[in-house]
């Protein structure tokens, strides 16, 4: 039990992303309004982005841009990896953000089409209309 607390503290970024993700998941499943579901979805995606970015962090490392270096001449001094943050998760998450935007755009377009058709965004009213037909 003694070493449990430090491990929990050492890994707090994982607990954050898990709670954020569960909020998103709950919203998507349980919420009745379609736009709220869309918001839940974007929270869900943002949680995963947070998770990925938190992988790349290194203690005492700066952002992965090499100052004072231009051109690829041999003159520059050797670069050692310890003092730069891991760039790969940032690249991946650039992609995931763009996917999130694209999915959000399409979802909103669909929501507009649904609203034009059923004049409501509440799921239970829509289902009632369908069942009535």
């Amino acid at each position, binding site marked *: 039990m003694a070493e449990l607390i430090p491990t929990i503290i050492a890994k707090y970024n994982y607990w954050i992303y898990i709670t954020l993700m569960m909020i998103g998941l709950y919203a998507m499943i349980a919420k009745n309004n379609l736009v709220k579901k869309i918001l839940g979805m974007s929270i*869900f995606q943002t949680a995963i982005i947070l998770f990925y970015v938190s992988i790349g962090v290194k203690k005492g490392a700066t952002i992965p841009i090499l100052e004072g270096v231009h051109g690829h001449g041999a003159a520059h001094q050797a670069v050692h990896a310890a003092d730069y943050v891991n760039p790969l998760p940032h690249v991946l998450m650039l992609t995931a953000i763009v996917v999130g935007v694209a999915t959000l755009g*399409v979802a909103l377009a669909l929501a507009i089409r649904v609203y034009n058709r059923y004049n409501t965004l509440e799921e239970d009213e829509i289902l009632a209309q369908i069942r009535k037909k």
Partner: protein
Amino acid sequence: MSQQYPALLVIVPLLSAFAISIAGWMNKRLCFPIAVTALGVAAYSSIGLLFRVMDEGVIVYKLGGWAPPMGIAYYIDHLNAIVLVVVTIVAFLNVISAKKSIEQEFPEKAAPFYALYVLMVTGLLGIVVTGDAFNLYVLLEIAALTGYGLLAMGEERAPLSTLNYLYMGTIGACFYLLGVGYLYIVTGSLNMVDIARLLPPLYQSKAVLAAFIICMVGVWLKMAFFPLHAWLPNAYTHATSSASSLIAPLVTKVMVYVMIRLMLTIFTPEFVFATLALQNIVVWLAVIAIVMGAILALAERNLKKMLAFIIVAEVGYMVGGVWLGNRAGMTGAILHIVNDALMTLCVFLVVGNIVYKVKGYAFEDLQGLFRKMPFTMGAFVVGAMSIIGVPPTCGFFSKWYLILGGLQAGHYGFVAALIFSSLVSVVLFFRIFEICYYEPFSDHHGHDHPPQPMAEAPPLMVVPLLIVAVILILVGLYTGDIVNHIIKFAIPEGLV
């Protein structure tokens, strides 16, 4: 030029999609020819690739010139070579028959439709070809987004059912992404073969187990495996016929391919079947999927929804076959990807023709179709025979391997489910044949009625359908060669 096939395969459709959307604003008549040539080139290069793989084994294509773990690489082995050929041929045949029905339903939006169509095929080809786990997620999203676009173009309930599909699809894709993230944390690499090399010492760790389960749940959600299938029937029913006859045969099958790729390449069979205790549970889940898919299909009174539920049952076949864990089951599953794509394409093209001529796909609209549309219904009979599993057609042969796998693995529940679903599909299809066979005036002796004129769909829609029907029988007869030359090498020796 031939060693550039892997790149040509994906880039030509991609560039032609941009060309189509630009041509859409310049002059519309160019769109269809560009789409057909692009898919023709893709089909040609995929067949060329298949033959190259058959004599050279695995082909690695380094994108951007970087060695695999640094850059992204294509891995083309026997497994995805044959899936590539199926995807390109299905897309090629379907775009030809889609022309007429799109001009009938969305004349002014034909150009963006073709662009989305070709983009979707690019996404699917990319998924099948790529060797990088994260790249597969990006392509998954392309296929999903263009799929939402194509499906939502349908009639008035389409946007709502596509929105539900979007929710489930996004959760699935994000779970897959999370799974890849877990793998990245513990191994540090994103390339599939590289991860497989780094994983063995970590087999016991909880993170790898979690990564596997999350990836599986994500992939199952995308392929509509039974408990997670709620989005499929509505999404495919309310879509336009040409969109659903592209998406229905391909998306679920490519996702099954992704599952097989995950299980065979990243988490090698030793991990999946030895260390994990999931095998029996998943096969029982597949049994439930098959049985429920068949029963729910029985309850439907409209043709497309019934076919959608049959797809859910077919997914149950494939997942069950893969998870049996023996060579016969795996061969049956891979063969079933090929056969099921062709069968579903044949049956959905028939629905497209019927909707084109009769404007309805409920059972009441199908009266007397054998006389009115003999060629379409002839192809429908071949497709139905293949789904039921009658020998000359290919459906029987993959079912044969699946049942054999079930017997060898001693999983009699799976065998019983397969037999049960064949019997149910006999009832399903003969219920429709009865309606189409007996003309509407069937209450008295069929004598005194003028035979209705033959109102067949236009040749541009019927010829691809007949080609698919012939392919169904040819693939059936050539099963021996397909299995011995291609599928035998696709399964690693580790699987007995």
